[in-house]
């Protein structure tokens, strides 16, 4: 009995080990970097820990850490603009995704089972192609001489200039994240008991009223899951704004990349990443709470 309990203890340790190794340790590294200063050296920051100096070396290392980089972030308008515009892009895209994704998920959940399977497959199918290739394909569609403008010319319209504008970023974000919105919504809508709608009708609801009084409130966990599942990664999204948005758009993902690779300002890149992380901790915690609640109420 005792031996068995010990082994369960070890098994329970595994996720902590995993989290420690792949989350906590890198996080501490980045946090440490964000408190450092840039230097013309390899690696390009200071202070560094000199283990040979022993405890004294560790002391001087900690003494040299400061919040200077963070101060720089708040004083430079560029960072603030990037931060706010990232939130804006993510928020508006999440809204569009909800408006597009909800009816889609609803229709899927109401389909005949066979059709449902086919639609679900179609929803997942794009994942079989590389994400980058799909974004490049979007460039092919949106560019001035691309598919869209060619088609528009055929019907005597256009041309429209979309590539390298905010619109292109929205199109890219919505396109890329649609499955992440639809799938959690579909999951809650599909699970909903049909007799609840009958009960609502029986108690005097028109189908429209039944939707708003029963279906929609019951799907809110799915709405929350979908929204957070899209919002969180979209705030830090790098590839889509970089490839579709051109050079003028500022988003945090891009800022991190620029600081790290172009400016070799590792502390600034790390500080931006830490700020981003703390911004997202709120929705992540909300998401977890929601999931926990779902599990508790789950039947």
């Amino acid at each position, binding site marked *: 009995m005792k031996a068995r309990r010990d082994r369960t203890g070890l098994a329970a340790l595994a996720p902590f080990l995993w989290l420690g190794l792949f989350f906590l340790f890198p996080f501490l590294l980045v946090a440490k970097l964000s408190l450092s200063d840039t230097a013309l050296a390899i690696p390009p920051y200071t202070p560094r820990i000199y283990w040979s100096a022993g405890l004294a070396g560790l002391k001087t290392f900690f003494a040299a850490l400061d919040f200077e980089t963070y101060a720089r972030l708040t004083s430079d308008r560029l960072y603030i603009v990037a931060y706010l515009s990232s939130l804006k892009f993510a928020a508006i895209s999440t809204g569009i995704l909800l408006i597009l994704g909800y009816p889609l998920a609803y229709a899927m959940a109401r389909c005949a089972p066979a059709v449902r399977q086919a639609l679900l497959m179609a929803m997942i199918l794009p994942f079989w192609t590389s994400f980058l290739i799909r974004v490049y394909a979007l460039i092919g569609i949106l560019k001035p001489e691309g598919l869209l403008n060619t088609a528009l010319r055929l019907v005597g319209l256009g041309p429209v200039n979309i590539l390298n504008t905010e619109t292109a970023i929205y199109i890219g974000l919505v396109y890329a994240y649609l499955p992440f919105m639809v799938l959690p919504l579909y999951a809650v809508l599909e699970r909903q008991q049909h*007799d609840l709608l009958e009960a609502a009708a029986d*108690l005097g609801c028109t189908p429209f009223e039944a939707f708003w009084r029963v279906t929609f409130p019951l799907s809110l966990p799915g709405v929350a899951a979908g929204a957070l599942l899209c919002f969180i990664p979209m705030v830090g999204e790098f590839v889509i704004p970089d490839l579709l948005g051109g050079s003028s758009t500022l988003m945090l993902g891009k800022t991190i990349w620029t600081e790290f690779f172009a400016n070799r300002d590792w502390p600034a890149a790390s500080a931006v990443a830490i700020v981003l992380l703390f911004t997202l901790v709120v929705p992540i915690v909300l998401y977890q709470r929601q999931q926990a609640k779902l599990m508790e109420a789950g039947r």
Partner: protein
Amino acid sequence: MTERSRPRLNIGAVRSTFAPWADPAAKPLVRFENVVKRFDGETAVNGVSLDIYPGEFFALLGPSGCGKTTLMRLLAGFETPDSGRITLAGEDLAGKPPHQRPVNMMFQSYALFPHLSVERNIAFGLKQQGMPKDQIADRVTEMLALVRLDGLARRKPHQLSGGQRQRVALARAIAPRPKMLLLDEPLAALDKKLREETQFELMALQQQLGMTFLIVTHDQEEAMVTADRIAVMRSGEIVQIGRPADVYEAPNSRYVADFIGDVNIFEGKAEFADGTTVRMSSPEAPGGFDIVEDDLLDVGSTAWLAVRPEKIEVHLDEPPPGPNRMAGKIEDIGYLGDWTTYLVELESGRTIRAARANAKRFVDRPVDWDDKVWLTFARDAGVVLTQ
């Protein structure tokens, strides 16, 4: 199918004089007229005509797949009949969606809204009627008291026991004061003890509210206990309508006799029928059967005699020869506490069921396995069936 009238026989215990179905002047609340419903070519309801009267507790009874639930769903508006007419208080319900019908249904699954508290579940229909908030609160309190759920108003359905959920579903369905309450297997999910209690509660509730109840059930005991009248259904048709005692003591077919309770059915040939007595010959009984029966059977026609186990007496000493007498051997004894069931193997090899109430704690000569016994029953104990 025709209903048989038996004016000379007083069947079962009749508690009240409530019998609007026997009054030609009474107006039914619900009338089904030749209602037919098919699903993908399968006929679920096949030409049902049925009147249900105001204040009645009516049961649709039958095995699963007999169309009883479909019949109820047709009335609630969840299905539309392929032909025939359903009227409620004289008004044709055709084309009326469920939300416009003044009937409420209690679902077998209860279908409680999981995101709403008990009180908001109960208030759901009231809110939909546009009732003012303070009145809703009053009605909800009243309903909670009625189903004895006071104090649980704020709970969510998943925090309730099965019995409590059942009562929330009931309160929610009766709160809007529908003209009629439809109960779809309302007690099926409860355990036996709770089910029995709830049966009596349902009856009390129905009397208190004066509301018309229509219950769908496959449990004959549930139908017998609760209902004023029972319609026994079989593959989409109503086979017999009657008070519980009518259906039990005077079934009109072997199907009904067999479906409601235990029964022994003997096949035989009619030898004599004069409007008061039927005499039958049967390979099971050397002395034949002699039964009080007003049906005039053709001599020589095949008929069946249905006798309930509790109406068969078991004797250890040989009774004088005569009709309604069979000899056999005790094959098995089922002691149920209140009842003992004997399985008796006749000389013909047939096994007959006889039951005796254990009214006394001690018996002089208990019947034992392999005992040679004689079975007899009174002339009015059985019913002669022709179909």
